[in-house]
């Protein structure tokens, strides 16, 4: 219980001051990296998906039904997007036992690296001294990622994470009253990121992150839109598809 308590306490302390920071850059690609259509086999790891509501004060209220709908819709949308990626995408079969522990560590590592990219690369004013060179994108999970079981025939791993807190009615009413009192209150959190890891070298070759995403993942159309936004700037996609995706934004 102590963990949950601490988390809730921190949330309670911060929620009134939450002002989402707008990322100045959303996409990073390793310089010179291109993915020719039809040349690579991409493995999709189990997407991390959380959907729920946002209480009046801003607490996340997880919703199991919405999350389940989003999981199905995003899965379908990702399968549909395969054509646009120009390469085969297969679902990763999760290992059991000791291998599962290794996979869990790599998923946690990917999350940590992705968060670091968002924080220390996508905000130009916040770049680490070693990441300041122009057009630089040097991030890696380490070459050992290829040793995960079931990845021997694959070239790239695709990670997808989305989190949605839909503003409740109470939150929206509070927003109006707060606006009258000249207090900025936001309703809703919709963030997500997707990344592509080269399984031969462990390098992160592409990352797309957006803290204010569109598309209602609880519905099929919305999930299509969300997946289009998640895969925006994907290095392997044909030029035409990129145009369509940007237009659909």
């Amino acid at each position: 219980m102590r963990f949950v308590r601490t988390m809730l306490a921190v949330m309670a302390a911060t929620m009134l001051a939450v002002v989402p920071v707008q990322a100045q850059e959303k996409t990073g690609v390793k310089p010179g990296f291109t993915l020719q259509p039809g040349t690579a086999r991409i493995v999709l790891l189990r997407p991390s998906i959380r959907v729920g509501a946002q209480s009046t004060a801003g607490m996340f209220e997880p919703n199991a039904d919405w999350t389940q709908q989003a999981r199905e819709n995003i899965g379908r949308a990702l399968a549909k997007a395969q054509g646009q990626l120009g390469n085969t995408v297969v679902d990763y079969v999760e290992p059991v036992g000791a291998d599962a522990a290794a996979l869990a560590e790599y998923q946690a590592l990917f999350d940590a690296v992705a968060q670091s990219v968002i924080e220390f690369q996508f905000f130009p004013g916040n770049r680490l001294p070693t990441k300041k060179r122009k057009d630089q994108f040097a991030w890696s999970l380490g070459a050992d990622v290829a040793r995960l079981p079931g990845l021997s025939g694959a070239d790239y791993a695709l990670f997808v994470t989305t989190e949605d807190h839909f503003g409740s009615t109470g939150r929206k009413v509070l927003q109006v009253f707060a606006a009258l009192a000249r207090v900025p209150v936001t309703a809703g959190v919709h963030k997500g990121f997707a990344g592509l890891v080269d399984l031969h070298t462990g390098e992160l070759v592409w990352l797309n992150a957006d803290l204010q995403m569109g598309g209602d993942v609880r519905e099929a159309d919305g999930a299509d839109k969300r997946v289009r936004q998640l895969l925006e700037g994907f290095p392997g996609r044909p030029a035409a598809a990129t145009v369509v995706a940007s237009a659909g934004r």
Partner: protein
Amino acid sequence: MIVRRLMAAMLAATAVAGAGSAAEKVPPLPPYVAAYEPTNVDERGAWMIADEDERRLRDSADVMRDPALNAFVRGVLCRTVGEDRCKGVRLYIVHVPAFNATMRPNGMMTIWSGALLRLRSEAELGAVLGHEFGHFELRHGLADFRNRRSGTDLMAWASVLVANSAAFQVDMVGGFYAFDRAQEKAADMIGVRYLAASHYPSHAAADIWDRMMGEADATAIGRHRKPDQRYAAGFFASHPTNLARATYLRSAAAELPDADGSAGVDGYRAAIAPWLPMLLDDQIRLNDFGGSEYLLGQLAVGGWATPLLFARAELYRMRGHPRDLVSAAGFYQEAIARGDAGAEAYRGLGLALMRSQQVEPAKTALREYLRRKPDANDASIIATLVAS
């Protein structure tokens, strides 16, 4: 003003609800439902998050998976809360050297390795696990979530509508912690009920907190602070104080009819014995000389076994005052004299003697270490010490 009066009324209502769940009398056990499924949106959401977290914990490298140890701990849980109830729980032993156990709404229970080091009997382990099971059975996670949500909602409205709401906000935050403490007390009370219904003696629950106070005092003294046991909990305290818990658990145990069964001291000691060196090694790295020394003294009540002597020697050598090195060398020698000490005892003895300027005896001990463990990962640096 109306708003403020409304707030005060709601605040009073919350406080009453919190106090209500902390009844002084020991409540009877609630009826049990097998294979419970969450019913409403909030509860299903809480289970979903807990399920996702459990996927991660299940695969975590920090979980101790030894089948014998897991079977033992699980056996104690089942004997405490009953065979039917314990089926709803997945129990994970997590390698963290602190005294804690946790429960999630979906039935994911953890107990930390530091708790295994500090408990003395199956009955005490049952008291801790029964407390956590109480959180699950009483659906505390859900109630706490709702309490925080409605409370923070009120705070958000107050911050917008009420001109000077600081005092109200402080009251509400205090209310969250008071609610948590009431839940912990309710879990303690149901835990002691399980213990009384099992064949374990129910006073074990209070015994734990007596020793926890002793350890906290020893830690404080070791760190040159004043030992401070209070009855009233602080503003931000998530749990009642150890003194309060020891007191009300002791009187609850006296009130309850108790079976005449054994506390299972020997069974507990035998089950933990293979893990004792590792648990002690974790403990002495916590930089808590006073607390560790107290703990070792408690463990050695029946006599100083070799792992205890070795751990005590390491503890003194790590603090490293000249007098500590003399004590440490003595403890290493005692451990070696018992005949079943590991090669590391010779290593520690050698290093302690070396720093006490007793170079030749030190080299003899270090040579013995290298002879017993030629492939040790510090073999080359120890060899240079011997050669110097």
